[in-house]
């Protein structure tokens, strides 16, 4: 049964990605992308990552896709050329992309999990996934977490500087 559900998610994620990347209207592409992110969130639930699943939905579906839609509103989807969709000499770039994809898939499928940490399912069950992530985040990665705050602050200033009227 779990294999059937996983097979559905594999096939539908590949199909949804194809649909999202081949639409001519960018608004349709963004809506297919929303469907892809919801499927990714459910696959995170397969992998016992409840906190990341919710963060995926909130950050991507809530913030990033709205940002995409606002940009498309600013620019106007009619302005985009629909005849010439791909750049010149796209066949060579397609071959390069296929070769890199094949290399990535072969390399990923050769990974062996020899390492095993202490966060087993029974260990996480005692406290909960969110508590375990928070404990790791605020103890071992506290400086990195602080730097992520800075990394989110600098683009906020940069966006204001870049997007003001240039002329």
């Amino acid at each position, binding site marked *: 049964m*779990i294999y059937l559900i996983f097979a559905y998610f*594999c096939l539908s994620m*590949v199909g949804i990605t*194809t649909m*999202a*990347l081949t639409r001519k209207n*960018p608004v349709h*592409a*963004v809506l297919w992308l929303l469907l892809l992110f919801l499927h*990714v969130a459910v*696959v*995170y639930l397969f*992998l*016992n*990552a409840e*906190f*990341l699943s919710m*963060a995926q939905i909130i*950050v*991507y579906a809530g913030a990033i896709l709205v*940002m*995409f839609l606002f*940009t498309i509103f600013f*620019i106007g989807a009619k*302005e*985009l050329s629909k005849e010439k*969709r791909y*750049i010149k000499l*796209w066949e060579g770039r*397609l071959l390069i*992309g296929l070769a*890199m*994809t*094949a290399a990535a*898939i072969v390399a*990923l*499928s050769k*990974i062996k*999990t020899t*390492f*095993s*940490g*202490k*966060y087993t*399912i029974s260990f996480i069950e005692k406290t909960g996934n969110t508590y375990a*992530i928070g404990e*790791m985040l605020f103890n071992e*990665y506290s400086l990195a977490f602080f730097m*992520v705050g800075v*990394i*989110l602050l600098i*683009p*906020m200033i*940069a*966006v204001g500087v*870049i*997007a003001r*009227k*240039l*002329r």
Partner: protein
Amino acid sequence: MIPLEFYLILSGVIFGMGLISVLINRNLILVLISLEVMLAGVNLALVALSHYMNDIRGQVLALFSIAVAAGSVAVGLSLLVAIFDLKRTIDTEELKELKEEVSSD
């Protein structure tokens, strides 16, 4: 229990589709959308490895990756608006101010 390779191959396929789309599209909005697809594939691999290695650091790393992706796409979209303000186009073939002029002889 589903084998780890299935998740990794799925993430590789999604990453590759986004990569090909980044390389061949000429619409700048679609290039940014493809970047998001690539990041989704990478995060999927991180979370799958975190689950199968019994270590939660992969999920923490995926959380950092989501945060950095939000910042990068905000800067990218504001640059796109600025480029459209100046040039009235977001076609990547039209944006060649930094390209060197090829002499005819």
